[in-house]
């Protein structure tokens, strides 16, 4: 525990550093000499060049036959890896490669995944899986989705196994752990462009590079989870293993790994989710699939199609997440002794039967005419249409509504009040907030910022932290990319600040949980808040009802004759009916549970899709960048704030109640202080997310490190790419260090844990 003395010492030193920082800023007004700023792109030393020659050295030279890393990586990428990718590509979307039997007809895949979902998690999961895959197929994105997933099914298992092995190694040997830890920390903060370029250079453009970048990106949590799981195997189980005379190998494979099953599968879940996020992002190096299509659609501002692709990606993400989580939860079940074998393996048998059955149907229907839905209906009924698509959904047969969504969105945005609002936000933010703030940061002398960061470091962790934090920023300063780094920093700080302003009150409101009865007695404010809560908890139900009614509206043919909202529309009444029915069935949902459910779902969305609403609302400018980061970072903020507040021990709030505290007093004197360490962790994650997203936002057009990084992708400038990436990582790590130290100290001081 820190003594009072040490704490006040720290405060004084930190204050001194801060004063020095301000002094330098003031001096700069008179003489710019103190602002030790290097011109852009020229580091104190030629780091990039040095790194380049280093990379060139280890790379080797294929043309001049100088052996190096490149020989190995090229062998892998042209040998086993490419083979695997080609095979899955052939099976899943019919790429013309060995074994040349694909593509497997989509209904066969849909049906087997459906059975798998039922086996893992019952009807709800089946509903989700079938819904997702049917949507993907019918909307006409099956091939795109399979292109994306064909890389995922190769990358995820590889990342899983390498992660597992490294996890075991770091559990076995503390030396390996010590080496891996900092590497993983950097890997987790490195912007993804920095994964991409080396992957391209070493592993050849296209799916192989995409797969490699994905594997590296998805591995760290697997390593951490494996090591964690192995460490937490109960010691008596281990002893029992030893006393049974297990050898080392037997201990590992029959005692440790099976006992750590849960953590390992949680690791797998994260691997899958990160793989999906990264595969989508590899669009930036020309990987075909959903990501590439989304990129193209956004480039040409086809918001409707982008929206549809976004929905597909989101649905796939949610499906994969829930399926793998269901696997984590699924405990082995026992059968009574006399159970016949087909009962034990019913899922496998049903799956196989359906799989083969649908392949057969596809064979039979291969020559059937490819009606569109409308044509099919004219021929008599929808069955004609279904028969036609049972092997493949042809281009014309997709049910994409891109154009009409476009129209609807444009119409919405052109509503005067909407336009006025977005315009006002855009104008106000850019002119009055963002640009002044950016210019202010850029005008600060380099030593001022370094000293301020060091002061923060000193405050939370003494000399060591001050050196780490200050040192990291000095490294950024001497890299030659200071201005761009500051712009990145400005974007991150602005977005996270806005997210806090919106997120904290929202989370506090949601964390109040069960809504009080709706009466006007206690005033208009509480009534409105209660009403908002009531509406809020009904959102998921309304969504579900909308899906049901919407499907009916579409497939019944009503969509061709009348508007959904028209008073004669059956769909509208269907919507109301289903909604009321659902409200009746699930009555007591709490705000916090609903909010957490929404946040949990949003958390699985690949970062890329957060760009869609941003561009939709604000077009292509700084506000869109900030907005996309804002909603992305809102997720961890909301989540941790709610959990922090919910985690306050009830006896403490009760003590406050008994002392006669008002709700506000209780919030500010008891709940918030106790929840603060947890909120800080959420804040930290928000910052990490922001540093990640700001790089993706380079797509919208920024002037920061991300933009420069994206440019390097076109060339072979590994050195520069690396330096830029490290700048981002260093800034992120500084925040991470300071915030986490602070949170740990608070926790210790409060006696939590």
């Amino acid at each position, binding site marked *: 525990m820190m003594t009072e003395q040490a704490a006040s010492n720290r405060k004084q030193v930190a204050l001194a550093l801060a004063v020095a920082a301000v002094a330098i800023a003031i001096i700069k007004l008179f003489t710019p000499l103190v602002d030790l700023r290097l011109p852009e792109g020229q580091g104190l030393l030629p780091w990039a060049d040095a790194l380049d020659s280093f990379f060139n050295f280890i790379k080797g030279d294929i043309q001049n036959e100088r052996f190096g890393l490149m020989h190995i990586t090229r062998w892998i990428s042209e040998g086993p890896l490419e083979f695997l990718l080609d095979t899955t590509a052939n099976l899943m979307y019919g790429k013309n490669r060995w074994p040349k039997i694909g593509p497997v007809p989509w209904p066969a895949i849909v049906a087997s995944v459906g059975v798998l979902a039922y086996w893992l998690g019952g009807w709800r999961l089946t509903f989700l899986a079938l819904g997702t895959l049917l949507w993907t197929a019918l909307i006409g994105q099956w091939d795109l989705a399979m292109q994306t997933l064909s890389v995922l099914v190769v990358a995820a298992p590889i990342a899983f196994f390498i992660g597992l092995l490294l996890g075991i190694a770091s559990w076995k040997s503390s030396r390996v752990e010590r080496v891996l830890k900092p590497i993983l920390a950097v890997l987790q903060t490195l912007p993804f462009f920095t994964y991409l370029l080396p992957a391209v250079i070493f592993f050849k453009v296209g799916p192989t590079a995409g797969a490699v970048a994905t594997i590296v990106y998805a591995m760290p949590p697997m390593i951490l989870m494996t090591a964690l799981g192995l460490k937490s195997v109960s010691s008596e*189980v281990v002893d029992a293993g030893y*006393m049974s005379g297990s050898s080392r190998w*037997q201990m590992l494979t029959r005692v440790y790994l099976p006992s750590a099953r849960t953590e390992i599968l949680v690791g797998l879940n994260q691997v899958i989710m990160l793989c999906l996020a990264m595969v989508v992002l590899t669009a930036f190096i020309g990987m075909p699939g959903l990501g590439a299509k989304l990129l193209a659609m956004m480039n040409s501002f086809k918001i409707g199609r982008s929206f549809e692709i976004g929905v597909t990606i989101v649905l796939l993400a949610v499906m994969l997440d829930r399926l793998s989580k269901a696997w984590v939860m699924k*405990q082995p079940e026992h059968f009574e002794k006399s159970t016949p074998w087909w009962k034990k393996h019913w899922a496998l048998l049903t799956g196989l039967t359906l799989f083969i059955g649908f392949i057969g149907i596809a064979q039979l229907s291969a020559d059937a005419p490819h009606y569109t839905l409308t044509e099919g209906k004219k021929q008599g009924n929808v069955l004609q249409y279904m028969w036609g698509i049972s092997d493949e959904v042809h281009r014309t047969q997709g049910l994409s509504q891109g154009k009409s969504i476009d129209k609807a969105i444009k119409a919405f945005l052109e509503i005067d009040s909407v336009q006025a609002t977005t315009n006002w936000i855009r104008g106000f933010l850019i002119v009055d907030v963002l640009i002044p703030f950016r210019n202010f940061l850029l005008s600060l002398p380099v030593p001022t910022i370094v000293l301020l960061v060091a002061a923060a470091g000193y405050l939370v962790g003494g000399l060591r932290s001050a050196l780490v934090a200050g040192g990291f920023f000095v490294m950024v300063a001497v890299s030659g990319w200071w201005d761009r780094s500051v712009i990145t920093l400005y974007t991150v700080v602005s977005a996270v600040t806005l997210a806090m302003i919106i997120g904290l009150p929202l989370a506090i409101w949601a964390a109040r949980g069960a809504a009080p009865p709706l009466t006007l007695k206690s005033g208009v404010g509480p009534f409105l808040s209660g009403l908002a809560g009531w509406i809020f908890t009904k959102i998921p139900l309304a969504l579900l009802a909308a899906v049901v009614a919407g499907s009916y509206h579409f497939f019944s043919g009503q969509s061709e004759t009348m508007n959904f909202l028209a008073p004669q529309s059956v769909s509208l009444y269907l919507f109301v009916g289903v909604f009321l029915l659902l409200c009746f069935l699930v009555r007591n949902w709490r705000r916090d549970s609903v909010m957490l459910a929404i946040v949990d779902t949003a958390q699985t969305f690949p970062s890329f899709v957060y760009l869609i609403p941003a561009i939709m609302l604000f077009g292509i400018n700084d506000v869109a960048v900030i907005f996309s980061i804002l909603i992305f970072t809102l997720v961890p903020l909301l989540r941790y704030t709610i959990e922090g507040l919910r985690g306050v021990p009830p006896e403490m709030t009760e003590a406050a109640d008994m002392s006669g505290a008002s709700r506000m007093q209780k919030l500010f004197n008891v709940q918030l202080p106790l929840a603060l360490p947890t909120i800080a962790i959420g804040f930290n994650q928000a910052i990490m997310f922001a540093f990640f997203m700001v790089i993706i936002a380079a797509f919208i057009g920024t002037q920061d490190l991300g933009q420069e990084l994206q440019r390097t992708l076109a060339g072979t400038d590994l050195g520069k790419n690396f330096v830029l990436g490290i700048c981002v990582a260093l800034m992120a790590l500084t925040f991470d260090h300071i915030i986490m130290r602070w949170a740990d100290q608070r926790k210790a001081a409060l006696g939590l844990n």
Partner: protein
Amino acid sequence: MTAQPVIAARNVWKLFGPDPKRYFSSLQGGESFEKIQAAGYIAGVRDVSLEVAKGEMLVVMGLSGSGKSTLVRCFSRLHEITAGTIEVEGQDIAKLDERGLIELRRRKMGMVFQSFGLLPHRTVLENVAFPLEMRGQDRHERRKRALEVIELVGLAGREEYFPRELSGGQQQRVGIARSLAIEPDIWFLDEPFSALDPLIRREMQDEFLRLQELLGKTIVFITHDFDEALRLADRIAIMKDGAVEQIDTPDRIVMDPQTEYVRKFTEEIEKSRVVMAESLMIDLAQLNGQSMAGDPVKSNRTIHELARLLINDQRPVFPVADESGQIIGGLHRQSALDVLLGEEK
């Protein structure tokens, strides 16, 4: 004891802490538990020397945290000891290499764990068969053997259940079955019956007694239950703060506590249930001719069992006979009554 002991521990120490070996070398010997604790170490086992003979059942008792489990773990080398030696059948186990240790555990030792230590991902059957599997027995045989012992512990019909689907007592029985499956020569039982109901507990005790008598198993048994200890023990060791306070036959522990702690520990026991005629008996030579008429009493009867006789029969001295009926000494009625009713104050 002439035959070689199965387990021989000499000056065994087990310290927990950052660098126990180094800290131990700075000790003079005989430091108190508190002093060691003040230095940031916990003395799990403190200078323990004892021997366990073949076919003997040694019961270890002591308060929670007194180091019973730790001692037993040292015997099976689940803990590396800080100092001293432990020999199992004359072999210093600290010197065994990995292979040797695995062999020792596969061929000789078995253990039942305090909190069961069942593998969560395996069914009852697979858990019980686990040690057999490690030894490389073939599937069919180990299944047969496992089913046998599962039947024995009364879990027939639950072979396919997973541990989490069983009650605490049932889980404990799986742990017992697992160690029964290999019938080891040396058995370490760490509170093996703590979660069982009295009926099954008695059955299990009988089973272990039977095995011990029939097959000459050596057993180290930890329990908190005096009745159990008295029923099973050849000798009892009482531990406090990692050290063995006294190790002796049950009646000597009760009649002749060596330390204040042991006396307090055994205070509550009804002595007449422990003390046998034999231990109050006076040699024929010392009786110098007092009359010893009438039926003799058996030397291995407890005073409690003789109570009715002691009250009804007025003879001042009872002759004591051994198993074969041979008179080996005499029992003063007064001293026996003292044990039965408590001494007159």
